[in-house]
């Protein structure tokens, strides 16, 4: 079995291009598996994985859990909305308690950027970052790139626009890193208050006109407005946002080309994306969800090679 260059998946930043291709090739095999009548393989039998979610999640957690079960791993789940600190227990104590039950891998979502990196310095189990605050969400970026590749082929030279709430997103940074490693060009579009001031240093183009972004790109990855993460006001109203930054059918029809529409979910229908776009043939949103399971199976399978 080939290995990734790291025993953890903390972020896309640490992956090599070869790592990403290895994950994609492995995911191709697993995608075949999950489309068979018998969707399960014994690859991770005897491996125990804990899904430790310190932040609410529906699809990511389901997707990981399904991926783990399809690989025949033993799975335990820990969820705690809000911080464990509030209950008087530190992150390290919580995770060490779980590891004391002989767990091999930790899949963790946490609201603090760098929480999995912090953990990696203190524990020996493999860690998969399932989203750390506004930092990275590596498996989402992998499944996004995998879905793009499936639709448009090699991403070298392709134009991808990431539209929406960038500053509160963990998907944006992981997407930028992944797409650049695969040779794609990246453009960022949204209200300037939702775009980090220094993002232009990351080799991306930044525009505020959504039409310009759509006209430029082959693929538009529309991000969710993270209302729940906005501690202060970044824009005046959802109405104005959807009028000037939302993607709707009229806009798409005005382009002289076909583009692919993606969204990491859950969608605020009528805000960043209208229903007639989300449900149209442009959209590969449900493919993303399906591929999520295959890609996460690939990541877990490859990291399991370094367990012990």
């Amino acid at each position, binding site marked *: 079995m080939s290995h990734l260059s790291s025993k953890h998946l903390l972020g896309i*930043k640490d992956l090599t291009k070869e790592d990403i291709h290895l994950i994609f090739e492995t995911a191709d095999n697993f995608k075949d598996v999950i489309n068979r009548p018998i969707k399960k393989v014994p690859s991770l039998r005897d491996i125990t994985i804990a899904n430790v979610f310190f932040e609410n999640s529906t699809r990511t957690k389901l997707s990981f859990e399904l991926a783990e079960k399809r690989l025949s791993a033993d799975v335990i789940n820990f969820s705690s909305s809000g*911080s464990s*600190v509030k209950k008087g227990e*530190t*992150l*390290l104590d919580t995770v060490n308690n779980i590891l004391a039950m002989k767990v091999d891998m930790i899949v963790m979502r*946490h609201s*603090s*950027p*760098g*929480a999995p*990196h*912090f953990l990696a*310095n203190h524990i020996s189990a493999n860690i998969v970052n399932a989203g*750390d*605050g*506004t*930092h*990275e969400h590596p498996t989402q970026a992998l499944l996004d790139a995998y879905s793009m590749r499936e639709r448009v082929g090699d991403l070298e030279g392709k134009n991808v626009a990431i539209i929406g709430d960038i500053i509160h997103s*963990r998907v944006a*940074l992981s997407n930028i890193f992944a797409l650049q490693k695969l040779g794609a060009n990246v453009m960022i579009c949204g209200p300037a208050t939702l775009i*980090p*001031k*220094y*993002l232009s*240093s*990351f080799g991306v183009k930044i525009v505020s006109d959504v039409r310009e972004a759509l006209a430029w790109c082959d693929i538009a990855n529309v991000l969710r407005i993270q209302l729940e993460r906005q*501690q*202060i006001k970044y824009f005046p109203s959802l109405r104005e946002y959807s009028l000037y930054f939302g993607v709707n059918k009229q806009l798409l029809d005005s382009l002289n080309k076909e583009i692919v529409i993606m969204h990491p979910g859950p969608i605020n229908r009528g805000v960043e994306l209208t229903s007639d776009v989300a449900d149209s043939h442009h959209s590969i949103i449900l493919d993303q969800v399906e591929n999520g399971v295959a890609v996460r199976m690939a990541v877990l399978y490859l990291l399991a090679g370094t367990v012990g």
Partner: protein
Amino acid sequence: MSLFIREVKVLDPQSPHHLKRVNVLIKEGVITSIDNKEHQADTTIEAKGQFLTPGLFDLKANFCDPGFEHREDIYSGCQLAAASGYTGVATLPNTAPVVQAKSHIEYLKSKSRDCLTDIYPMAAVTIDALGEDLTEMIDLHEAGAIAFTDGNQPMWHTDIMLKSLIYLQKFDGLLINLPEDKLLTRFGTMNEGIVSTGLGLKGMPALAEHLMIKRDLDILAYSGGRLHFSNISSAESVKLIKKAKKNGLKITCDVSIHHLLHTDQAIVGYDANYKINPPLRENRDRKALLKGLKDGTIDAIVSAHSPQDEESKKLEFDRAEDGILGLQTMIPSLLSLDEELDPSEWIDKITSRPRAILKLAPVTIAESEKANVTLIDPKKKWKYDQKSNLSKSVNSPYYGKELTGQVSATLNGEKIYQTPS
């Protein structure tokens, strides 16, 4: 009791013996001779290769007492300060309770009375350092408060800032402010820049510091009074203060040793030991701070000694508290800046300048002066670990590492501390 220090190099620009190699005799806490002769004494220190400096002075240390004695207390703080070469420390008022009543000043003074290091308590400008209601500053001054500051909290309220500067003029009191516009740093955990963007951490723009400095300079020009900016951290701040000094405003400022040594790159591994406020900035800022020290814009270098317990630091970065220990590693840290800052360029910044800012009597190495001196061995290698650490806390990025340069003795009158070899 007499002490003879043989073949030591004097490092004190105010002394006629500056940069000379001499033999120093100290009797009953007074320097009785500085020459090249041999003298008999109770104790002789062979100090070839070592520096003799005026006793060090710190303008920004938190001894956490009362309220957080598990992090540091007056005794551990004083012992640590003496071992770090400090004969004087101005302590921050951010304790629990905040230093804001004359009984608080008396507590700190009486508790530190027998210590080698003189403690100069600073009192809060506003009740509980919340920036809203003035403390009884005249009474606090009479009780011995050396300066007035809300410490690690900025004076955010424009009118209270103005009133404080005016009120303090009755006794020419010094106001020390940490320049930070809190509205611009809300939820921030590190410097805003390329590094924070890549780490997904919410940034604190240097703009928050510049805005406050500009505001305070304008207020000072209007009100008069004496103002000191605590812990400036960015290139733009140096520029603003340089210009204001040139225009004749009565201002001084300091920088922390941490901002001279590190940049926001140190945070790439999410090590909370590097989490401080103001945050570590970029290399261009660090360079500008060094330049500001050389050209006299920045008056002092402070330890920003800020003990934190492990429970407050061994956490996710955004949840960890701010602060780094600073006293015991000050000398090795300054020496490590060798190529960028010469000892002749930093010695005033940790001895005569901070004393002058507080209007304390000057300390110098000359015959008939009280022995207020620090002996430094610049080549001595030592490990900063559980055995050598004298703080009650361990929140330092140097903890566990080998350092070069150590204080070998500190003298304040008849009180002497010698580092065990």
